[in-house]
């Protein structure tokens, strides 16, 4: 630890901390634009210049390391003049029309900096050189008129996402932010993760859908877990008047470090499905509205009349642990139905639980992917699902990461090469996904785990969808299409129906569907129960690496929609049952291949 004197106040900071860090600790506000806590220090905008006693010139506080007994002044006339100059230069370079900008009044770091310096005018008039708007991208807009060339977007695209789509053409005052070799963003190699938009300090990158829907301060921020895969990225849900406005990555989230992938950021706001707004019962060819009691009575009578070995109960892996728990207690422990099925085919989670019984703990945290010198990705396409895990690897490629990728697990020779060369590397990792597990029998897996253990390779098993791991621990496995029963009870929630789900449902004569959205499933159902979606239903989720996360409620549920726990519990009362199963101990009782942090 070292002592730094900021405007006369002594603060203690870590060795290697920058002057900016020290100033923050001292509560001294130094404006900065190109600096971002998640990006490497850059020192380009020169807005954060401060006076350091003994230094000949002004010092950029975002890059300069603080040293012991250093004396720093952050508000001298010299410093303020430099700040004002830098701002004047920026305002005179491009075309800033604050009066109608989407970022004005709080969301623009450039404007805020000007306010902080009490700027009421621009000493240098702009040149009024027009820049064409690039609106070719479906999710966001590139407005070079408002770009301050801080390169935050370029750096997040390269340093953190590892995609290197954004860059600069020309140099000096002709520098221009472009995609690839200056082609429209919409036709570029952009993977639409939208992190550049979240990192942009001005209105130069604008989110299409949430534009003008309100400033950060007008919106309600709810921390919530991303359910679009099981990595456990934390995202902030921004809402207004009980309406979803935008999704952002939480900066200090352990796994995603502020990043989101296109799936996690945009799929929910793009969701155009129609809600199930009322309970319905089939009368002949028609589904007619009914109230909850009627519907549950019909369901209960059917469940009672049809023997338990003629009943299948299915549930979506997007359901919370609480929901899975109630589901298991009612359908397995009490009704002892023929099969409990999960609404997706990915077996990685169940396999990992199965192997845990023999091997105990053999998996590592996903975060090991951020720090490795060689990686084998087997049976998983990290550019589709689990993209953030893909970012962790891609961004290390320029640093020399040796990457082996076999998404379909069809190249055994690649595994062999990795095995043979494993001693070349200090920190090798191996990622196993759905396609590998599907293609291998338990024997192969056992063998591999033995090898991994010996070779000190850190192993990560990607466990499919949001809560598939918790489901597996609770004994809910992917449904077996060969089994057909007279009655099917399907807890769909906000799950996107796939052909297998429809197939399994069609096998039964009586179909009960509990869903948030209309789909082919609700179309063919005999009873439809309105469910909440992930924004409305609060509950816990278990990530790929065994972290217990809470999905907070972000929106008030629509009228009549009920949580899975409530609907199952109310159904149970029709059988004179009260549900008492403890979901926490259900998790702890089961040996797992990675230490759960609950």
């Amino acid at each position, binding site marked *: 630890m070292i002592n730094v004197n900021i405007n006369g106040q002594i603060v203690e900071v870590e060795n290697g901390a920058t002057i900016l860090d020290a100033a923050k600790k001292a509560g001294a506000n130094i404006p900065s634009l190109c600096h971002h806590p998640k990006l490497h220090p850059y020192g380009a905008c020169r807005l954060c210049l401060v006076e350091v006693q003994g230094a000949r010139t002004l010092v950029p506080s975002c890059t300069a390391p603080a040293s012991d007994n250093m004396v720093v002044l952050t508000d001298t006339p010299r410093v303020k003049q430099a700040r004002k100059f830098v701002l004047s230069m920026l305002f005179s370079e491009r*075309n800033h029309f604050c*009066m109608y900008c989407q970022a*004005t009044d709080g969301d623009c770091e450039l*404007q805020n900096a000007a306010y902080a310096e*009490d700027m009421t*005018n*621009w000493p240098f*008039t702009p040149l009024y050189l027009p820049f064409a708007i690039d609106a070719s991208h479906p999710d966001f807009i590139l407005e070079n008129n408002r770009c301050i060339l801080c390169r935050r977007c370029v750096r997040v695209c390269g340093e953190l996402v590892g995609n290197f789509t954004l860059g600069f053409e020309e140099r000096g005052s002709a520098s221009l932010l472009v995609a690839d070799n200056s082609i429209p963003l919409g036709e570029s190699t952009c993977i639409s993760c939208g992190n550049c938009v979240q990192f942009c300090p001005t209105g130069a990158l604008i989110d299409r859908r949430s534009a003008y829907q309100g400033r950060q301060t007008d919106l309600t921020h709810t921390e919530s877990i991303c359910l679009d895969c099981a990595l456990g990225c934390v995202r902030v849900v921004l809402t207004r008047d009980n309406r979803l406005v935008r999704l952002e990555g939480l900066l200090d989230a352990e796994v995603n470090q502020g990043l989101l992938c296109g799936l996690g950021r945009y799929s929910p706001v793009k969701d155009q499905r129609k809600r199930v707004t009322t309970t319905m019962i089939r009368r002949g060819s028609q589904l007619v509205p009914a109230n909850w009691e009627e519907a549950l009575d019909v369901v209960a009578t059917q469940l009672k009349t049809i023997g338990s070995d003629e009943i299948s109960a299915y549930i979506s892996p997007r359901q919370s642990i609480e929901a899975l728990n109630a589901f298991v207690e009612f359908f397995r422990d009490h009704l002892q139905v023929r099969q409990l099925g999960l609404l997706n085919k990915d077996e990685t989670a169940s396999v990992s639980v199965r192997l845990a019984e023999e091997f105990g703990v053999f998996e590592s945290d996903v975060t090991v992917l951020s720090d490795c010198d060689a990686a084998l990705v087997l049976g998983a396409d990290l550019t589709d699902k689990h993209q953030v895990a893909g970012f962790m690897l891609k961004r290390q490629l320029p640093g020399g990461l040796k990457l082996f990728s076999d998404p379909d697990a069809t190249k055994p020779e690649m595994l062999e090469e990795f095995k043979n060369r494993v001693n070349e590397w200090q920190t090798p990792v191996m990622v196993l996904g759905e396609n590998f597990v599907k293609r291998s029998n338990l024997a192969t897996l056992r063998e591999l785990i033995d090898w991994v253990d010996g070779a000190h390779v850190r192993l990560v098993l990607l466990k499919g969808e949001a809560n598939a791991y918790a489901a597996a621990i609770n004994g809910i496995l992917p449904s077996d299409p060969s089994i057909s029963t007279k009655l099917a009870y399907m807890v769909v929630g906000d799950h996107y129906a796939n052909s297998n789900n429809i197939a399994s449902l069609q096998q039964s004569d009586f179909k009960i569907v509990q869903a948030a959205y209309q789909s082919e499933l609700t179309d063919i159902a005999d009873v439809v129960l309105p469910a909440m979606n992930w924004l409305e239903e609060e509950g816990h989720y278990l990530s790929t690496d065994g972290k217990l996360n809470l999905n907070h409620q972000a929106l008030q549920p629509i009228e009549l929609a009920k949580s899975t726990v409530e609907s199952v519990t109310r159904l149970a009362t029709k059988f004179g049952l009260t549900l008492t199963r403890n979901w926490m101990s259900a998790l702890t009782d089961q040996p797992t291949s990675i230490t759960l942090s609950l």
Partner: protein
Amino acid sequence: MAKPKVASDWLAGCAGCHMSFLDMDERIIELTKLVELRSTPITDLKEPDEAGVDVGILEGGISNTYNEQVAIRMRKRSRILVALGDCAVFGGVPAMRNFYGAEAALKRAYVEAESNDDSAKIPSDPELSKPVTVKPISDLVKVDVFLPGCAPSADAIFAVLADLANGKIPEVKDDLNDWH
């Protein structure tokens, strides 16, 4: 002593700043106790007194030859000149015309517009003023007080005028300084 004289005029703007001035509502009466309103768009005197006024206020940027005359006259005749609103301070939305130039804009409006009939032509009567590059008034004349905003709030305008009425040069900061 006599109340300070205030004159105002609007150039290439939208009159919103003067509307914001009216948003002082009842305080206008208070204000008329502090200052004497001379020529303004809402009074009937046609130009600032030749003898000069204490405070001259200009809304809107410079966008044609007529604006230039008005701005220079207002500067000559006022002790303190206030640039009121984003157009006067920065150039504002009308400055977007600079990207294309007046000619292209005239062509679009008077020749190309879908609704024009065969009389379409760019008006060129000597009675009409000629468009110039749109700029903030500070590019043409010295400005003493900048009050940005689109529009500046009635509170901001009142605070600034009250200060000026009391012979103080107002400090435009914090809530008073809002460019939106």
